[in-house]
């Protein structure tokens, strides 16, 4: 039997949804508004999307963002995977210690991450640019990858690897034929999350970017200071779409590995 909820709960949920999604809905809706002014609706159009792709600054920011996202994703995925595998072999105390340290960048406020990295780069007199943004993105993405893969490894347990070893597989063969296929969906999911984080990051990038390394979020921020144009709405809509798609893909990968317990690190 279905238990009956209090009617107020339904209303509460509705208000929550409105609260969260109305601002986003506005941006998406106005990206299709043929009027330049946000105030009135004068018809449906794709013009802003078209003019977006003709805009040299937008395209440059996009290319910067993609380069940074791809490189930082590759590096952080490899590092995060290795750290997750390594930490598993440690003793209990070390595991808690190192695990906690790797988890910390997720909790530390972005503004502090950004500021501390800026101080560091200044100390080493590194010119701010794509390289510094990539390094910054790796530092926080790696933690997410590590957490996702650690969850996957815990779900897997030790028995499969013991079974492989019992059946004559050496350390490399065990990793290649058992561990890697088991954690592969986690690696892909971690990479997708890292990519999304890099693409969306504003705060940390803002501190460590240089004149020639404007990313999309930084570009949007710069434009908004001069008033919100429909192009920006269109750009934001695309970013929302890409992020949501990537996160859904990541979640899909995490739920793969048929017949096993559903291990979700995200709430859906």
């Amino acid at each position: 039997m279905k238990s009956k909820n209090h009617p107020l709960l339904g209303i509460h949920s509705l208000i929550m949804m409105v609260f969260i999604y109305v601002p986003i809905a506005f941006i998406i809706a106005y990206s299709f508004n043929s009027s330049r002014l946000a105030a009135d609706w004068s018809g449906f159009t794709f013009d802003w999307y078209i003019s977006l792709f003709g805009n040299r600054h937008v395209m440059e920011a996009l290319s910067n963002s993609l380069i940074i996202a791809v490189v930082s994703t590759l590096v952080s995925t490899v590092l995060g995977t290795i750290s997750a595998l390594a930490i598993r072999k440690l003793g209990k105390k070390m595991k808690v210690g190192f695990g906690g340290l790797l988890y910390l960048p997720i909790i530390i406020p972005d503004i502090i991450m950004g500021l501390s990295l800026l101080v560091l780069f200044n100390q080493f007199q590194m010119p701010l640019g794509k390289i510094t943004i990539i390094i910054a993105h790796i530092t926080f993405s790696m933690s997410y990858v590590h957490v996702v893969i650690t969850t996957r490894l815990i779900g897997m347990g030790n028995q499969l690897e013991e079974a492989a070893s019992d059946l004559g597989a050496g350390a490399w063969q065990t990793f290649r034929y058992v561990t890697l296929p088991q954690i592969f969906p986690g690696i892909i999911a971690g990479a997708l999350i890292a990519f999304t984080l890099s693409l969306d990051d504003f705060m940390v990038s803002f501190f460590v970017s240089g004149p020639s390394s404007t990313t999309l979020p930084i570009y949007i921020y710069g434009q908004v200071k001069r008033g919100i144009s429909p192009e920006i709405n269109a750009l934001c809509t695309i970013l929302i779409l890409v992020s949501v798609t990537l996160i859904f893909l990541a979640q899909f990968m995490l739920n793969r590995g048929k017949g096993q317990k559903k291990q979700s690190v995200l709430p859906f």
Partner: protein
Amino acid sequence: MIELVQVEKRFAGQVVVHPLSLTIKEGEFLTLLGPSGCGKTTILRMIAGFEQPTDGKILLDGTDLTDLPPNRRDLNLVFQHYALFPHMTVEDNIAFGLKMKKMPVKEQQERIQEAVTMTQLNSLTKRYPHQLSGGQQQRVAIARAIANKPKVLLLDEPLGALDLQLRKNLQSELKQLQRSLGITFVYVTHDQEEAMMLSDRIVIMNSGQVEQIGTPRQIYANPTTLFSATFVGENNIFSRDGKMFAIRPEKLRALRDVEGAKRTGEVLDVHYLGSVHKLVVQLDNEPMTVSILFDFNDNRPWEVGERVGVDWKSEDEVIIGS
């Protein structure tokens, strides 16, 4: 076949397995039996190579295994929760060990076919583990192990996760399999009935120590310690002149005539168990109850609260040490 020489295991100063010497014969079905935490699984894992003994040696066919990693030991383990590779089909699971040994493909096929036939998995080879029932998964785990033709098969509570009826069926299948393969089985279980049914010899363990080693018959009829007397089957423990002796419930007699019986008491409960009845008796002078099993051919049933004489033949007393 397998020889354990003074094998000892300590975890962080705590003794998990006290020094143990044991010889397992070729083709033998040997069971390590004991409650959880008694060290039986640790012994199995030391033989398989997943745990390193703190002291002592493990020999297989005269060669010292102690320092060899699990992948270089000529024996296979059937895990408690099967540990099948979820991303491989039944066939690939079974082939895994053969591929690791770089066996020619044709021979691999023969071995797989043989293992599949023995475990009745013929129609399931293309399935993935999650598409199989618990009993089928268990069969795959066994097929995967025996395809390697190991000298010894180690089994860690392989039927523990299955329900009672299925367990009963698989017990007899396992026994038949062991007979037809002729390889040594080392079996771990906490189920004394299972141990009695399957084993040639049983090692009874309690808190890291061996209590008794013997055939099921020896262990049932002549338990040497209090633990093995009470762990395997039901038993009644009496004492006389500071010595303990055990008498199985089926060896006790319940007498209506209280006079002349060795002990007297009052019927506390009467259980009807189908083929037999069980009488629970509270003894008069000792704070204990005894169980009496008997065929119910008496013309009048026992009543709760009735006076009863408990008697037995002196030769049925089994003196137990300590």
